């Protein structure tokens, strides 16, 4: 591994490890995201009843819960740096790419933990068919990467705004419509037990979306971060 890349990886890991340590001590973002996700899932499942719901509706409900849980907590990774006044120290010392990657990995960890908690509850509370479980898990992975790839840069943009929560949802919504639509379509088919050939197009689209969003974010982040 070239020295520059190795240096970037170790710096990004330092940012990630610092955020994990802060989160373990404060549990602010984790409690927010889990409470929001579990509460929403419980309300939705109790309201709609347990059986006979079409897989298309179940898939849509699942990703709506994931989207709003993400908007409730993923922005915290930058907001708390600004509110605590620590962003300046980080800007002065750290490579912007290391900051972005560290924050991205933190959000990926946070959303993966939420997914690990929400998914079994989703199957229990809604009695959703397991269908093609492997494909469903693939959709979860692509969804988590896509949501985090798009929202981490938005989180940095809104961290200095006065109406952070609202602005985060408003700015995230248009860029997440496309992957959410693909995720709902592919998850519906995965829950119905269709083969991988039936969801090849949305899978390719989601991979391309994640690559484009993360690459564009890496290129643009330094301009957002320095302002």
């Amino acid at each position, binding site marked *: 591994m070239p020295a520059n890349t190795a240096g970037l990886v170790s*710096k990004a890991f330092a940012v990630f490890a610092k955020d994990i340590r*802060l989160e373990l001590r404060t549990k602010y973002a984790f409690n927010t995201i889990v409470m929001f996700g579990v509460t929403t899932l419980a309300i939705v499942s109790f309201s709609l009843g347990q059986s006979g719901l079409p897989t298309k509706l179940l898939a849509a409900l699942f990703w709506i819960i994931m989207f709003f849980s993400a908007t409730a907590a993923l922005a915290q990774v930058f907001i708390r740096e600004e509110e605590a006044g*620590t962003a*300046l*120290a980080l800007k002065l010392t750290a*490579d912007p790419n290391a900051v972005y990657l560290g924050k991205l990995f933190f959000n990926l960890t946070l959303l993966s933990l939420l997914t690990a908690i929400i998914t079994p509850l989703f199957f229990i509370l809604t009695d959703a068919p397991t269908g093609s479980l492997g494909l469903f898990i693939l959709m979860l992975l692509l969804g988590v990467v896509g949501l985090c790839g798009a929202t981490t840069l938005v989180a940095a943009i809104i961290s200095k705004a006065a109406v952070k929560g609202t602005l985060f949802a408003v700015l995230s919504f248009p860029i997440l419509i496309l992957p959410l639509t693909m995720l709902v379509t592919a998850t519906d088919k995965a829950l119905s037990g269709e083969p991988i050939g039936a969801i090849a197009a949305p899978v390719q689209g989601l991979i391309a979306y994640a690559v484009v969003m993360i690459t564009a974010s890496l290129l643009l982040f330094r301009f957002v971060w*320095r302002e």
Partner: protein
Amino acid sequence: MFTLTAENLGKRFGERKVFADISFELSTGDSLAITGPNGSGKSTLLMLLLGYHHATRGEVHFREEDLPMSESRIRACASLVSPYLNLYDHLTGEENLTFFATVAGGHVAGKRIDELLRMVGLEGRGVDMVGAYSSGMKQRLKYAAALLNDPAFLFLDEPTSNLDDRGKDIVASIVEEYRRKAIVIVATNEEGEVSFARQHCRLGQ
């Protein structure tokens, strides 16, 4: 040899002019005190020199051995102590220093961290959470963090704010050492701190 050149710097916030036509050239071993009334733009000028505000007019150049320095090289060689710069309350003093040393690309040994904590009078307190520190102790820890990379450019904004007499003596000895081997720029309104520097730039005139 490092140099820092400011050429005709000017800054406006909307219609309000903060300052205009600020020029100076500093080399290693030079020190500059920036003074002026409240709102005259002292902190703004420091942030502008560090590249965190855009100048409305003029340019800033960092050079090492007469060659322009890259953004990452400037980051590695410049440090700031300021009331606007906070460290992490939910990390210990030692964890803060280790974190900032790592993201800056250095591999600072525990011995160096102990040495810095002793230098700023925080020996034995490095394992405490920064949130439990007094404002003066936090200010001392900022100096330890700023000196981690042995900076070639040391920017100090209100350098002795929140410090007791012993803390002020520690800052005076740090400035005395660094104004010989680095470029030191101090933004202040305290008469005693103006004497930290050999050159003087007054804003708001």
